[in-house]
């Protein structure tokens, strides 16, 4: 069975690139354009992997979303990755180096944009 991937990002162009690209690679992909849609799809679609943008409606929407995800029973079967342009040089200082840090942001990992579709594919194959 192919992996189910949920993309949550308010940037329509990123979804326009990644969704068809990953589908072509054989994944089942759903996209949400804000946190609310993301929550609904998480419950109905039951993804294996979630890529969540950080800055959406608010500067910390992604963190709030991850916190919510952490309280869902489906969360234990999913890998959650924060996917953001707001990385180390800009804005938040966070990392997923230790389990404590992971716990703090309620995510298993984070990826900094931009990341080429091929690199993203590589990441999913190796880490998810």
């Amino acid at each position: 069975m192919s992996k189910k991937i949920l993309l949550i990002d308010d940037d329509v162009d990123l979804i326009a690139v990644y969704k068809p690209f990953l589908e072509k690679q054989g994944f089942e992909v759903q996209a949400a354009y804000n946190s609310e849609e993301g929550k609904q799809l998480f419950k109905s679609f039951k993804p294996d992997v979630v890529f969540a943008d950080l800055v959406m409606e608010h500067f910390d929407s992604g963190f709030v979303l991850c916190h919510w995800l952490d309280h869902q029973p489906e969360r234990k079967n999913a890998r959650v990755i924060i996917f953001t342009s707001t990385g180390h040089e800009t804005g938040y200082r966070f990392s997923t180096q230790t389990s404590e840090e992971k716990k703090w942001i309620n995510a298993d990992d984070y990826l900094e944009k931009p990341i080429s579709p091929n690199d993203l594919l590589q990441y999913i194959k190796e880490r998810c």
Partner: protein
Amino acid sequence: MKILDARILIIDADPEVVNFLKHHLGNQHVIESIPTGIEGIAKGSSSEYDLYFISMSLPDISGRDVLHAIRDVHEEAICIMMSSNPSIDSAVQTTQMGAYNYISKPFDAEKILPMIHRALERRWYILEARRLRQERENNLAELNVDKSRLATVINAIDDGILVINQKKEIIFYNPRFLQLIHTDRQILIGDSMFRYLPQSLQKQLCEILQKAESEGKTNAIKQEIVIKPPLELVVMANTATIFGENGQCLGAVSVLRDITEMKQLDQSKSHFVNMVAHELKAPLAAIHSYLKMILDNALGDDIVTYNTYLKRSLERTEALIELINDLFNIFRMDSKGVKRNLEKVEVATLLESLVEFFKPKMEEREITVNLALKHGLYINADSEEIRRVFTNLISNAIKYNKYEGHIDITCVADGRWVKVSVKDTGIGMTSEEKDRLFQEFFRAKNIYTRNITGTGLGLAIMKKIVDEYAGRITVETEFEKGSTFTVYLPRVEN
């Protein structure tokens, strides 16, 4: 020491007494005489004489009453009582009442004159003592004035001041200090600092005293202390050691300055910078992924997608340029040094020319427009800035409108205002979206706005401009129905 030019008052009706004293003392001193007790009291009390001669037997009242009345006013008055029938009793009585001496009449010059000299000498000492006392009082008064002046200044200073001694006891603080450490408790002088001060300030004081002890020289520490986290009350604590003349450390003085506002400003600035960084990076990430797909030949021979990707990359690039322009505008508005070319702008004509400019965009989406403009209404403004305001309003009314939607633009006089309304039949806003509308980088995120590009700065800039002209903006909106933006700008006569 004795007084020259002493003023002497004789209260006696006996001319012999008056003549005797005038004869012996008159060439060195000023002598006045009064025959009755009542008049004597009046004269003798109104100003202080150096010496009083008071007869025990006066025609109206007793000499004792006169003595009592005069000493009542002038406590240190030297009064010599005279009597032609002296008695031990009355001598003792008057001496007890404060008389300097009690002599019998007629006078024996040899006895009397040395006594008078002694009396005048005594008077000199009294005056001298009085002068010294006065001088001392004056000095003290001056000192007190200095002290209270200093205290007033220290109490009025907007910085908190605290002084502690070597034993870490509080020995001075001003009212502002209590406010800044946010305590309602009364601190007693001599109380241990550990009972009252915020931990971070205690630490700073301990550190500096320890350093002073080990190094034996003045040093200072400057440090930010958060009194009420997260950032509600932040002070800059500037602590320095106090050394005595012998080089021993006496304690430390802390000056606390409220820097909360600065910190908050700093934080909102850095938040803004973070937002800017994010907003610049996000479109680049999108463009980057499009270009990667193209260059990695991931599209094969799908020419349609290929073109879409290039077109979107171009659009995002244009949006990025627009964002950078808007950022410049925001910085320009914020930096106050904006140069404006104020001129009279006829609003209706400006609106007409803008609508003409946007015609192709409206036709593209088959949006109709209706203008109801009153001509001849002027505002005093920089035409570039005001053009930006109306451009923004009209372009938003197109961007956020429905396909085949409608726009109503009106311009009327409303009291002292020119009122311009732009009403669209677009997507409208929820109340949460409406509340954040003028926030920098805020963009409504929903299914309708997904494909609309924007910088999130347009309305923030517009509001800044309208505020600059002392105008205002109101918004009426209903989600999925449309919005009406109304701008009021001060009207001027042509």
